[in-house]
Structure formats: C-alpha cells, structure tokens
C-alpha cells in the first residue's frame, strides 16, 4: 500500500519554480531516500508534505486521504512526523519537555481537565512522561533530560529531534538531513538508530540526505531531484548507474 502519494506537485515562489511536477509513491515499510544537489527542492518537498506550504499545483495523499490543503498540525495528527534540516528544537525547554510536546498531537485531555487536574489528565500526563523517557532512553539522551535543549551538542540535538518526532507515534517519518554535522562514528550509530526505529515502530521513512554512503546503505528506494524535477527513481544500484544522475550529481561526488 502506498503510504504517501504525490501527484504532479509544482511549487512556485514568486516566479521561481522550486518543484516542477514531481510525482512519487512511497510504499509502507520502506526507507525512501530523496537526494539531489543543493537547491534541488528537497526541503521544499518536505514542507509540502507536512503542510507548511500548499503546492501551487498537484495533489498529495496520505494513506489514500487527500491532504493537499490540510493544515500542518492536522497532517501531524494524522501521523506524519518530521525533523528539520536546520534544527528546530524548543531551545529553552528541557530535553524531556521537548519530547513531551512532541506527543501533543496524539494526546487529547481537555484544557479544563488539565486546569483542574482531573484523573484523565493525570493519567495521560503520566503516560506521556513514561513514553517520553523511553524514547529518550532509545536515543541515548535520558541522562540529560533536565538540560535545556539548546545546551546539547549538535549530534545530540539531531537525535532529540528524532525522539520528538517519534513521540507523535507517526506512521510516516520524514528525516531532513539527519546526519548533517555528524562524524563517521555518529553516522554509523544513526544508521543503526534509523533501522532500529523503523522495525520497532513499524515506520515508513522518507529521508533527505547528502551523505551518499548512508543513503545507499539504508534506503530501499531513491528518487533524485535536480532543479525541482525528478530525474530518476529506483533502488540504490539503479540510481548509482543512472547516466542522468551521474551527470548532474553523483559524478562529482563518487
């Protein structure tokens, strides 16, 4: 089943065409990579999928439900979690609170039951705390749970973003350059983490990444963007040997 389907997505910013009629299908349980040079439109694509932008043309579907005009917070509540390329943590909240905010979209205790401390709110809060601690354990940040998020090291901040996204219990997780700024041993750990969470939480993962090694290693399928157009799609072996891809992109790096 296609978890995510994009049909002819075009995005224009005042005359600049950031995406040009891009179509994609992401199957459940896959790790799907999106690669391409800087400015190819990868992050724009993420922003469209998560509802921050509404595409100029085209439609997108999440589990057969059209979400083209759905607002960002509703898309999140449907089960689409994400991390950000330029880390967007809640800097002056504790590490634990960052993850707790992440679960906002799947919790439902009402404003008044929280204000009055009714049993339902208390139960939910307890559950959220437990789950958040588990997630922090998973990404190895449980020790620093009381620190401010912006005091963490760079790699830790990236992992905290993943934990926060997982708190939403997503079925589709979007990772925007999760390895950026990491050294090679951190990258190895990250690969393990991504594979691990995919199995543990039964996730479909969409991944934008510059590190070819990482992408080729963990992705089932890869789409290549160049100047807003999709120029190739296939498994790592196919993409590596695609002439257009080598010309426009890979040739320089490998």
């Amino acid at each position, binding site marked *: 089943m296609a978890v995510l389907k994009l049909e002819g997505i075009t995005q224009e910013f005042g005359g600049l065409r950031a995406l040009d009629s891009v179509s994609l299908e992401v199957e459940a349980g896959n790790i799907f990579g999106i690669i391409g040079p800087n400015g190819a439109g990868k992050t724009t694509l993420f922003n469209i999928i*998560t*509802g*921050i932008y509404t595409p100029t043309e085209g439609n997108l579907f999440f589990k057969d439900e059209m979400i083209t005009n759905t*607002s*960002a*917070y509703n898309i*999140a*509540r449907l089960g689409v*979690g*994400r991390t*950000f390329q330029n880390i*967007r*943590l*809640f*800097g*002056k*909240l*504790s590490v634990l*609170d960052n993850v*707790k*905010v*992440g*679960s*906002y*979209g*799947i*919790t439902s*205790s009402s*404003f008044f039951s*929280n*204000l*009055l*401390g009714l049993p339902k*709110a208390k139960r*939910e*809060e307890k559950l*959220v705390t437990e789950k958040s601690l588990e997630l922090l354990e998973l990404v190895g940040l449980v020790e620093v749970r*009381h620190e*401010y998020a912006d005091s963490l090291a760079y790699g830790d901040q990236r992992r905290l973003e993943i934990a*926060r*996204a997982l*708190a*939403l219990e997503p079925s589709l997780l979007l990772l925007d350059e999760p390895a950026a700024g990491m050294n090679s041993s951190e990258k190895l750990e990250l690969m393990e983490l991504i594979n691990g969470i995919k199995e543990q939480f039964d996730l479909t993962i969409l991944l934008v990444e510059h590190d070819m090694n990482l992408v080729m290693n963990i992705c089932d399928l890869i789409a290549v963007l160049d100047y807003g157009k999709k120029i190739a799609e296939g498994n790592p072996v196919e993409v590596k040997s695609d002439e257009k891809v080598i010309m426009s992109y890979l040739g320089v790096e490998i």
Partner: protein
Amino acid sequence: MEGFLLQFIDAYYLRILVIIGINIILALGLNLITGVTGQLSMGHAGFMSIGAYTAAILTLQFGLSFGIALLGGAVMAGLFGFLIGIPTLRLEGDYLAMVTIGFGEIIRVFFLNFELGGKATGLYGMTKYTTFTTVWILVIIIVLLNAKLLKSRHGRALYAIRENEIAAEAAGVNTTLMKVLAFTIGAFLAGLAGGLYAHYMGYIAPKDFAFMKSIEILNMVVLGGMGSIPGSILGAFILTIAPEMLRIVDEYRLLFYGALLVILMIFRPNGLLGNVRIYDLKKRFRKKEV
C-alpha cells in the same frame, strides 16, 4: 479581616499590598500572552479598562452584586481578547505589537467619548467592595491554576509556540487556536483586575488605562523574567513598590524609574528570574556540597 490586619500594618502598606495583588493578576495575564507564548502585546491596559468599566457599570447602573460584576467585566474583556485575537494573531512580532497598541488607544478614546462611562471624567461612586482578602484569595487561585496550566500539555504547547512555531505545528499544535486561547485568558485576567481596581479606588477614568499603564504591565513581565510565574509576581512587586519608595525623591521618581529599566536590562537582560529553574538551583547546590 481588614480590621484584623490593620492592627499590625499601616493602612498605607495594606493599600500597597492590594495594588500589588491587582498588578500580579495583570502581570500573570500578560505573562501568558507575551512571556509564555511569545506574542508581544502592548495594549493590556485596554482589556483592564474594559473590565473596569463593565464591572463598574454593572454595580452602579444595574445594581448587580460585586461577584457577578467582576465576572461580567472579566468575561467582557475576554470576549474582546478573543475577537481581536482571531484576525490579529497571524501577524508577526512587531506588527502585532503595533495592533495591540492601536487597540489600547482606540479603547481609551472610546471611553473618553462614552456617555455611560462619564466621558473624560470617568465613573465614580463605586462601593469599595474590593478588599485585601478578595484580591489575595484571587491571586492565590490564579497562581495555582496558572501553574497547573503551564505544566500541562497545553502549557507546554504555548511555550513551544514561543520557542519555535513551525516545530510546534509539526508536533500537532494548532498554533493559531492556542495563541487565541492565551490571548483570551490574558484579557480575561486583565478584565478581572480592572473590576477589582474599579471597586478598590471607587473611581476610574480613561487616563488610568493609558498607554503607559500597558507599558508598566509589560515591564513587570519582562523585568521578572519572561514566562516565569514567580518572575511575574516578583516583577509586579518591585514595580509597584519602586515608585512608592522613590517618592522620597518625588519629582525625580520617574527619572529614576526610567534609568532603572535601562540598567536592569543591561545587567539582567533575561529578567530577574528569567531562565532560573528550581532544578538548576538544586544542581548548583549539590555541586557545592560535593
């Protein structure tokens, strides 16, 4: 209760304590909007005046009981907060600041021309229902509820909006709704404080709720430390007492007040209790032990 208290403290100090209580309610309301949610509002006195006038008219003209009048004033102010919040809270930063300044001024000019509110003279002759006890019981209730709110999922969502709006949306927070909610509660509390104020002073006039009053409330929040409940309380304390203490240097009072703001911001830019958490204090304490 007042009589009992007066045996121990001077009427003058009792009066200051009441004003401090009212200012704490104002500061906590604005703290929710500006300190916690990060939406710069500079027209808080406008909501206070709506509450003050509504409550005063309800007791004076309609002979309603004090409790109902207070609630009426607060609800009216909250309603205005809600109505103004919807179209304006999508504006960012300083544009929102300007709109709230404008709102405060429009309300003030409205009351200057408001027949039922006595125009520029204002309203007088309200029974002084507001006592030390009423004010401080309300303060305690509001502080407790406020603390409860900020520790809940909704409170965290509000902080998250301040820290990073887009990331908050990505976590499923309906940021517009939450901002309007914060704005409405803040306005409600300002209206409540207004009603208390009107029935403490016994008279109100549009000039009591001018732009500088909004600024004064904002100063309390920022000085105390944005988003911190103890901070807002401390800010309200200091900025109510400071002008009183500066009375010794009477005509230079505001001069010192202005200079004080500059100096405090230079040396404590995050406010007195900004980014100070009990956890950090404990940690520091523990380190010293070791």
